[in-house]
């Protein structure tokens, strides 16, 4: 009999194998040996687990699969199959499959036929459900919206906002303590990052949205938190464990700690740096190592933090700074944090560039840098995460409505939620949110983005609309 641990260790295999049989059945006839072999393998995998658990529910919630209410962690090697299955479930409005008792290969064959044919139906889930009526060992459930009511959405946004500002407030406090020479522990920092990790797992796009607003007086602290959020989100896409994500988030939070030694008049200078000022700026990786090692001594996290503080401007091709005598490989965290740092830096008006870029322009530029300054593979993950239209992008819809991207949709990157600020007649009205994945009765999308523009160019204050 399978133990509880075995059930959840095998969870990734369930997702993988289910994706494999659906892919195979979509190409071949159900009686084809490729399909029957895959089905037999799936049944052999599932039955011991069903026997052990009594009943096994595979459920899609948000962007994650759950088995008996336990979330299944992304696995890098199975990532394409995870994404494929989420997409196929969503297309059919399928929320769950309940394996109620030991099943036979024939039960699974029936499911596969029903699953594949349901896509051609006007109401895919209902069709699938009807076709499955005769199978007693399995049942299917409809996809539930994570938050059906506006009130619930409002609450979660409020929670995300609160966590974000708590993190910034903590960072401000801790950096001030470091500046004044106080010793700090990392218990609180861990808690702050753990909170962010939870939100990334549950509400990734909402938290990422918080990083889009840059109009704060004390942007340095927001930058640290933003880089931490972007790094954790990217790490989550890579399938890193919660514990590793926490370490990554902590390391990212302190990546710029060396800047505390840079005079404020340079750091907050409204114009571009002089050569001399650049010389000072380029010392902050060294100062970061010094600050971190003095602050914490040697432990796994401080060592990692010091490495990243040193490397985060070195670039993938070592074209950045500092230049070193000995060539070495960049740390994995450094590559992630460097991406997050560059993106947040480019899209803000305080760090490095005096002129902020629009998110889509920043991504375009980063794409040019991928493979040179930036790790090309990690960049692919990054762009998938941020979305083709990142939060805060000013967009014109085919309905002639003008709006700001409000929330990205992880599975449909080009169809985010948009906050409309000018209606179809170009009039300023009460803002309203539209979901670009919505279709009319003929199956056509109601709205599509036709143009993107830079909100900075038109002095649009994102905080006014998005906070």
């Amino acid at each position: 009999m399978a133990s509880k641990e075995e059930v959840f260790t095998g969870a990734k295999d369930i997702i993988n194998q289910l994706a494999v049989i659906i892919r195979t059945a979509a190409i071949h006839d159900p009686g084809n040996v490729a399909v029957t072999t895959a089905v037999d393998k799936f049944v052999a995998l599932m039955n011991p687990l069903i026997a052990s658990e009594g009943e096994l529910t595979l459920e899609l919630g948000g962007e994650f699969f759950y088995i008996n209410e336990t979330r299944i962690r992304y696995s890098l090697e199975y990532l394409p199959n995870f994404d494929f299955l989420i997409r196929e479930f969503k297309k059919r409005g399928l929320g769950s499959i309940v394996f109620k008792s030991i099943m036979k290969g024939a039960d699974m064959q029936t499911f596969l036929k029903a699953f594949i044919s349901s896509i051609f139906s006007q109401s895919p889930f209902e069709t699938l459900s009807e076709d499955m009526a005769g199978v007693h060992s399995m049942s299917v459930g409809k996809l539930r919206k994570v938050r059906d009511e506006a009130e619930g959405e409002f609450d979660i946004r409020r929670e995300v906002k609160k966590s974000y500002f708590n993190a910034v407030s903590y960072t401000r406090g801790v950096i001030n303590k470091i500046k004044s020479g106080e010793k700090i522990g990392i218990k609180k920092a861990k808690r702050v990052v753990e909170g962010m990790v939870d939100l990334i797992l549950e509400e990734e796009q909402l938290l990422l949205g918080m990083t889009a607003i840059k109009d704060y007086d004390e942007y340095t602290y927001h930058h640290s938190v933003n880089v931490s959020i972007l790094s954790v989100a990217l790490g989550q896409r890579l399938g890193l464990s919660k514990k590793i994500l926490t370490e990554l988030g902590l390391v990212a939070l302190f990546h710029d700690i060396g800047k505390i030694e840079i005079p404020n008049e340079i750091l907050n200078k409204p114009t571009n740096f002089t050569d001399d000022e650049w010389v000072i700026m380029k010392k902050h990786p060294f100062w970061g190592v010094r600050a971190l090692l003095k602050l914490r001594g040697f432990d796994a996290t401080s060592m990692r933090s010091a490495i990243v503080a040193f490397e985060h401007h070195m670039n993938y091709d070592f074209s950045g700074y500092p230049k070193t005598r000995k060539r070495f490989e960049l740390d994995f965290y450094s590559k992630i944090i460097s991406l997050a740092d560059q993106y947040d830096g480019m899209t803000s008006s305080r760090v490095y560039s005096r002129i902020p870029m629009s998110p889509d322009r920043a991504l375009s530029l980063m794409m040019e840098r991928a493979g040179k300054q930036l790790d090309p593979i990690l960049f692919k993950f990054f762009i998938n995460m941020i979305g083709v239209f990142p939060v805060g992008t000013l967009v014109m819809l085919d309905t002639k409505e003008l709006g700001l991207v409000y929330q990205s949709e992880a599975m449909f990157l080009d169809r985010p939620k948009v906050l409309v600020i000018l209606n179809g007649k170009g009039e300023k009205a009460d803002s309203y949110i539209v979901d670009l994945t919505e279709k009319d009765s003929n199956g056509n999308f109601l709205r599509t983005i036709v143009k993107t523009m830079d909100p900075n160019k038109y002095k649009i204050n994102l905080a006014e609309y998005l906070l």
Partner: protein
Amino acid sequence: MELLEDIKAAKDVVNALLKAKKTFRMYPETNPMYEKTIEDAYAKFRSFFDYRDELKLKIKQNELFCDSEQVYHNTQKEDNIALFFFKDGLREITFKKGFSHKELEEFLKILTVDYDREVVDDDVVTLLWERDFHNIRYVVDESFLAEDEDYETSAVKEARDKAPEADELARAYADAFKEEGVKDISIVPLTDKDLHTLVKELEKDAYNKMDKLLIIIFEMLYQAESKSDHEDVVHFLNDAVEFSIRHGDLETVIRIMEMTKEVTDGPSVPDDIKKYLGLVFSFLGSDAEIKLLGEFLDSGVEIEEKVFDEYVRFLDKNAIQPFITILGELKTIPARKNVINALIALGKKDIQSLAKGLYDSRWYVVRNIIYILGKIGDKKAVDYLIKTVNHSDIRVRKEVIKALGELGTSGVLQTLKECLDDPEVQIRTSTARALGNIRSAAAKSIILQRMADKNFNKNDFNEKKEFYEVLSRWKDNDVIEFLMKILKKKAFFGRAVNDENRACAAYCFGLMGCKEALPLLYKIRDSQNKLLREYAYTAIKRIEYGQ
């Protein structure tokens, strides 16, 4: 009525947790009490789950509630389980019916951590979060994490206030019809090769980060601009050394020292930098680091001899005194053996420092130092060793006599000669052996002189036998003549003692393999004295067959 029963069961659970919190601190996992504590607590949970599917405890500063019923109350700070949860922001904890034995054990371990220790970077909530219990849910108040409660309000206001007097939405709207269409940020899909590369990189990422950090620290050294920069680098290298010793990673310590040495040996390195880096070598041999090393050596982890020797190679003579200190504190034989080997290597650099160990109050340390000085074999040690021949502990005296014998300078003879008068038989025999080790004519002369003394005959047979054994090392005429004389000697009075001496002489001839003695030995082979007969027989066999 059932309501009261379930509340009572909830109270029992809390009490079981309290009890377990204490017991877990006292007993190791191998102790039967440890397992019994888990079993008892698990039984209480099971009893509760007979009434309900979940146990939800609301947490206040000094109280725990199940529903609205108080199930725990304590206003003291000590051993207050409510406060223990509350201070880290935990406000509610729920145990679900499936709560397993394994989960309970893990949960109890979390309860037992001493969170006030500076080295502990986790709190209760972090550990609950990391364990991700399947059957424990909890509610946390995170507001205490913010340094400034009003930060959100003020930051949002600031950001909103930055709105320009009038944005240019109308212009944006007009431009939207002129500007080019959507820029296509095409996403290159992830290939299997990409994923494979990433998996490899993740695997590689698990490796120790120290080597990378060392490169960075040395880079900081190369780019240092001030005295304080140099001091920082030394400080970090010292920390790296300490961290590695603490983790028993002597190989990394060796790498740190090699890198440091490489720099100090560099021809173009300024003297002041060399001086700073020299501090790292001193640090390696400091009291604290040697103490730490001792703890590691005592931990029972096996250390490759080659690695340890390499480690010792980087130690300076300042490590001698700390090693002497820990030598008396170590609990295991392999650890002491390693330290002795280290002192043998280091003592060569500074006999005087090592010899200070001879004044240690612990006899066993003094004995070890004598052994080490003997092994080093430096004649300079003699002057120090001679001073300990009158040590109050006989074990020390024996060791020093042995060491003096190994060193074998002419200066030790007079001291050894005096030791032959020691009232302790063990000292006298040790001295004889020491003289035997010296093998000089002068040493032989002292031995012969002592054996010729009429009082010598009165000594115990075994002591006399030891002396004869020592004498066998000089296979020369003086000795043969002396032995022959003994062997031939007849006595009317004290015949038993005389036969003992003859047996010893026969024994000595046997050890020497002296064929000249055979005729005489054949004669006494049939002696009426059993002892003499046996020793003569054995000696003949030895001489004839080399047995």
